[in-house]
């Protein structure tokens, strides 16, 4: 078992991002610490632009995440609509 992880600042935007992550990833575990929030999730975790925009009430560019991020663990995959952290499925099969 491997968990991916993302840590965000406890700012207004950070709090809304945490809500959006929890909404999209029901398995996410949230830990609060002074000034930061750490979210862990088994194998993978995704942020969807749509979910964030619904909470922010405005257009959101996923690259704005740069302003709230503190740390992350996992392989990153980002495009215009989603930001995903994941560990490789089926470790052991070496890429060509």
């Amino acid at each position, binding site marked *: 078992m*491997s*968990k*991916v*992880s993302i*840590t965000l*600042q406890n700012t207004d935007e950070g709090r809304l991002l945490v809500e959006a992550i929890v909404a999209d990833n029901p398995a996410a575990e949230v830990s609060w*610490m*002074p*000034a*930061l929030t*750490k979210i862990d999730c088994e194998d993978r975790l995704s942020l969807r632009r749509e979910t964030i925009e619904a909470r922010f009430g405005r257009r959101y560019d996923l*690259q*704005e995440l*740069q*302003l*709230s*991020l*503190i*740390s*992350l*663990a*996992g*392989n*990153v*995959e*980002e*495009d*215009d609509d989603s930001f995903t952290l994941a*560990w*490789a499925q089926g*470790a*052991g*099969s*070496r*890429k060509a």
Partner: protein
Amino acid sequence: MNAMPPLPKQRKLSLKERYAHLTRGLGWETTYQPMDKVFPYVSYEGIKIHDWDAWEDPFRLTMDAYWKYQAEKERKLYAVIESFAQNNGHLNITDARYVNALKLFLTGVSPLEYSAHRGYAHVGRHFVGAGPRIACQMQAIDELRHAQTQIHTMSHYNKFFDGLHDPRHMHDRVWYLSVPKSFFEDACSAGPFEFLTAISFSFEYVLTNLLFVPFMSGAAYNGDMATVTFGFSAQSDEARHMTLGLEIIKFMLEQDEANVPIIQKWIDKWFWRGYRLLGLVSMMMDYMLPKRIMSWAEAWEMYFEQAGDALFEDLSRYGIRKPKYHEVASKEKHRLSHEVWSIFYNYTHAAAFHTWMPTEEEMTWLSAKYPDTFDKYYRPRFECWTEMQAEGKRFYNPTLPQLCVTCQIPMGFTEPDDPTTICFRSADYKGERYHFCSDGCKDIFQNEPEKYIQSWLPVHQIYQGNCGGAEVKDVLAWYHLNFGTDNFDYEGSPDQKLWEEWQAQKATNPV
């Protein structure tokens, strides 16, 4: 100016397309000079790269987005720094002892940010692929920003507290600062691929969470809003750097099977180098934060043992295993901070920050967090020191210590399976003896002895007559340290006197 005819309306490019234009369109095969002359450092380390375009920044950050978001981070940070200064934020920290962690940070860590700036500017010039070059150049600018914002933020404390007045000079001379300095110089004097494995992967990805996350959260908990803000402003870049670290490792591993053993050796070396350096962080967390978030042992479990397990399981598909001696680091987690604090307590008369004995309440916390070690091995020592101090005979070790040739820390670490006996390791090279604190440091020496026989060991330099004189006072003057104010115990320091005056004012003059 003549009005330009309006351009035909174009579809906005996607993130992937914008990134492809930046990193695939801007590189070219040189013709005036052969490529190996233009990029002279990319092959001598033995790393084989067949397709530079296989490297991609998963954030796909383009220059316009980079400037936009970095400018926004700076605006936010400077707003906090200004309001902290205007509102006398230093009066709201939990206790002035906390400021000593900032002194260590400013002299030990901030100069590393500047070294990282130079390191990434260098390797950013020397990679063939435009993708990694641009990522390294962005990181070079980030690191310069970190050095500047840290110095700027802490300059506020320098108006009131001792020991913060000359961090750059101290970094090059003060005995314990040779530990971070030599760590980074070791990385910067390696080739570009080893540098990235060292700093981007082993340090940024595997280890710096331990410095920036729980320690900065601790800064917030102790009322230091200025530091937590620069910490997290830097750390928001750090998340990108960590991603670069993981991507560059995967890129090298995927390019050629022959790269795997070279990278494993670097991971082994730089894990241990970084772990030893973080010994300083362990004492900052367990001893220098008046209000504590989590212990070093808990942080090690969360950020190395759990997160590292997931990471190295992911990398096992390439044939990479966990770094050598990771189990020794886990064995040491219940004593590391106590041993390091003891070292600094021994030699506080030669340091640019104060140390102290924990209060009874703090010892209770340490006992609870370290139930198998604290009461058994360290409490009796601390109680003896506390008594000596009460009798007016505060303990200072009058003789300089033996240092490890590799990590340069005084040889105060104990055997992995025996916390009562110092771990001594040694090796002979060309007829001369060299001493190490651990098997990890000895292996690193034996793999590259010609590098470490050049170690600038502060104790030996003093004895060779290269540090301003033979007396402590002479050496401290050469360090630019003010004898009697910057050094010695917190008890009786000018910092303490000033802090107590402020507290008395607060009590008589409530706002």
